[in-house]
């Protein structure tokens, strides 16, 4: 194997990170840790976009990453609001118990 870092290595790293994040969302039950695993997946996608942006010579890929960052920040704000509302009422709450917030 030649040891020149090609773009394929970045893409594979992004795929591995996405896989770890996806498995984490499915396996963990603490809502905060699930949110962190979603952030892992978003970062994997960001890395893939930047790699493609460099491979295809297109700065639009980096602009998309900018928007993904903004949307991720908004999503974390809302997700933490939901988590605070849940855990204030139900201190041992997990993601299964969000239905208690109904109404």
């Amino acid at each position, binding site marked *: 194997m030649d*040891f020149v*870092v*090609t773009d*394929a*290595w*970045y893409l594979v*790293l992004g*795929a*591995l*990170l996405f*896989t*770890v*994040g*996806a*498995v*984490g969302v*499915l*396996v*963990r*039950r*603490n809502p*905060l*840790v699930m949110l*962190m*695993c979603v*952030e*892992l997946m978003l*970062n994997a996608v*960001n*890395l893939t976009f*930047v790699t493609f942006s460099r*491979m*295809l*010579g*297109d*700065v*639009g890929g*980096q602009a998309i990453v*900018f*928007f993904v*960052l*903004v*949307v*991720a*920040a908004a*999503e*974390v*704000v*809302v997700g933490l*609001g*939901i*988590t*605070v*509302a849940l*855990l204030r009422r*139900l*201190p*041992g709450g997990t993601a299964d*118990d969000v239905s*208690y917030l109904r109404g």
Partner: protein
Amino acid sequence: MVELVTFGLAAIIVLGGAFGVVLSRNPVHAALSLVATLFGIAVLFIAQEAHLLAAVQVIVYTGAIVVLILFVIMLLGIDRVDDVTAEPLRAQRGLAALLAAGLLGCTGLLLWLADGDADRMVTGRQSATAALRSDESNIAQIGRVLFTDYVVAFEITAALLTIAVVGAVVMAKRPSTLAPLPEHPDAPGAVPDDEEVAG
């Protein structure tokens, strides 16, 4: 050589942090592992000459989002709760392992079909939306593209941020009267008395 060392170290940090997030029992350890992953990703951004994104990643992701998560962990006091990984859905671990095998299998298949050559893995057209130029700085290019080609999306994300802030304030407000909760096996006997902590 420099790029190989940079990539190797950053990849180890990124994957080590990712496994730390998924496998840590303590949520605070998971948040700190996430910080490691985000810094590794920022290093990889710089290695790919996306300087603005690396800076924004450190400031927004590491400096705001993870700090917000740590605030919530400390506010709710759940760092003391050891996350016991009991599983209510019996098949969930197996299905997660199946998903992981599927994703890794797809990645391996793609690598095998393209013989590890990245140019054959990518099917897009060169510079389809906005050409990456080498004479202008990265910040200037992204700024120009954001304010000309993608200005509508830019304004919509500004509105989205406002909506998110309003929604979070509404959700986190304490209700004036708390309705009684239905029976739950893990809930304590009374509504938790934490006004002096958060009020």
